């Protein structure tokens, strides 16, 4: 079991090795975001700007306008939460090469309570032109996402989790930004998932194998979503379940519904947080209580 945040930190350090223009900014959250791995290796390219996320986003834009590739590291609730307008104007409207890393996505900040749980970040980032939105599914994929983001020119938002979770992909598994991955083929129901919901979906698919043939697709790129793979899968199965550790409005479920509503209307169930805030608790307790557990995915698959 490994955490996405360790993958993030290691990917960031590797990106720093590969390109001297990569710089890292944080708002007093170097260690918990794992930006500290970069800081230890490249202290001259690491800047702690204090607990001031709005300024940090603008500073990143200014650095990008001067040839740097800044990674802005904080918790997703604060960045892009608190500094959304700076993201909108200084980064996205200006179309600069800034990467926003939202740590502690979903229920990651479990015991810290509702204030620190990022359940709306995909909704607010998905609405912004020019911005790519990424939600990798495990440690290895988070590493790849960081390296791939550093190589493309333009703003990217990456959400990632804190907990040590099971591995879904391997170090040498293929990865391409914008390309959804069919991790398990099936013919009865398509499950589109992101983040830790991918491994939960795979567990359920395996469990149901004798009854229902479930296709599990990892949608690591939420925007632009891979319409082709989504439509192809649904044309085969005719039923859809989406799974995300996020509000059911505005995130992956909405993105899939938008694609299918226009191109291929299909019976659908969305597994996600149902328009409520979270609370303090153990991570797995919250996942269960707020309807994101394996039994919830199973129920959605059987009912759709």
């Amino acid at each position, binding site marked *: 079991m490994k955490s996405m945040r360790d993958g993030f930190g290691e990917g960031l350090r590797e990106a720093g090795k590969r390109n001297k223009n990569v*710089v890292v900014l944080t708002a007093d959250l170097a260690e918990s975001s794992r930006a500290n791995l970069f800081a230890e290796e490249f202290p*001259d*390219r690491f*800047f702690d*700007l*204090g607990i*001031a996320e*709005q*300024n*940090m*986003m*603008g*500073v*990143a*834009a*200014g*650095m*990008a*306008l*001067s*040839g*740097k590739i*800044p990674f802005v590291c904080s918790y997703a609730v604060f960045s892009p939460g608190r500094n959304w*307008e*700076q993201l909108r*104007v*200084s980064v996205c*409207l*200006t*179309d*600069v*090469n800034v990467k926003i890393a939202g740590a502690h996505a979903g229920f990651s900040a479990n015991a810290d309570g509702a204030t620190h749980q990022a359940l709306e970040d995909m909704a607010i980032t998905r609405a912004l032109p020019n911005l790519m939105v990424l939600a990798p599914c495990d440690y290895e994929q988070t590493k790849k996402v960081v390296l791939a983001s550093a190589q493309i*020119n*333009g703003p990217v938002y990456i959400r990632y989790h804190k907990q040590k979770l099971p591995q879904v992909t391997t170090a040498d598994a293929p990865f391409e930004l914008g390309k959804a991955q069919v991790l398990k083929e099936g013919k009865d129901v398509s499950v589109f998932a992101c983040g830790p919901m991918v491994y939960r979906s795979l567990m359920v698919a395996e469990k149901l194998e004798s009854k229902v043939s479930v296709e599990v697709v990892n949608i690591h790129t939420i925007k632009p979503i891979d319409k082709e793979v989504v439509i192809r899968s649904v044309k085969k199965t005719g039923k859809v379940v989406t799974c995300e550790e996020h509000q059911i409005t505005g995130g992956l479920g909405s993105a899939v519904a938008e694609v299918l509503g226009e191109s291929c209307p299909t019976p659908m169930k969305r597994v996600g947080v149902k328009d409520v805030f979270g609370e303090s608790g153990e991570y797995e307790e919250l996942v269960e209580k707020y309807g994101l557990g394996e039994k919830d995915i199973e129920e959605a698959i059987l009912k759709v």
Partner: protein
Amino acid sequence: MKIEELQDKANDIREVIIKMLAGAGSGHSAGALGSADFWTALYFGGVINYRSDEPEWEDRDRVVLSAGHYCPVLYAVLAEAGFFLKEELDSLRKIDSRLQGHPHKSSTSEVEQLPGVENTSGPLGQGVSVAVGMAMAAKMDKKDWRVICFMGDGEQNEGQVWEAYLNAAKFDLGNLTLVIDRNNIQLSGRTETIMPLEPFKAKLESFGLRVIEVNGHDIEEILQAMKMARVMLDRPTAIILYTTPGKGVDFMENKSEWHGKPPIEPGEAVEALEEINSIKTYE
């Protein structure tokens, strides 16, 4: 260029601003007119490096307009400096124009990009952080180019501005000059009524900035302050530019109702142009 010539050029810029705003039918008059002397001194007084035929020249000084609503004066001086044709000024705020109602920088689109504009602004407080980021990048790369960031005094209400000052002081950004137009008005009234700033100079100093106070209508003083800021490299400099909003047009001067509107009532633009014309000294 002699001081008197710069003074007349500033009044030419004021005429252009009036024409642009009257043509656009909306926009912000007072700040653009009030700071015309500063902007003229900045671009034509020999205190910054730029190449109007090579706007992205790597070693240029970066002029960041944080208070985006001042853009008519920026556009007017950029056109005067040759960054683009003056005829394009007529397109301010119109469809398909590069002269957006608030400045738009796009680092990827050649088409939308107005040469000479360094940043996107309008939502207040954002440009100063962009300027800080540029200054940090220049310092990392040991480049000599400087960053000049222009702000309004109403803009100082934004918390982001003070975050940026803390940031600039932490990294001793001696390559950063902040210019704050202290004209005492903002959209809906006097700055000291809406959200008092005084003692403003003491606040800036306590944030680690070196402060120079300047009469914003005295071109010689402006040039001297900009030259001083250029050589004092140990920490960031803030220039408080004391100006009269609407300067040059009697019926606009010191009136906050002219902060956010253009001369569009019958006769207003003509009267404004006549007044500005009458104060020219050198021609």
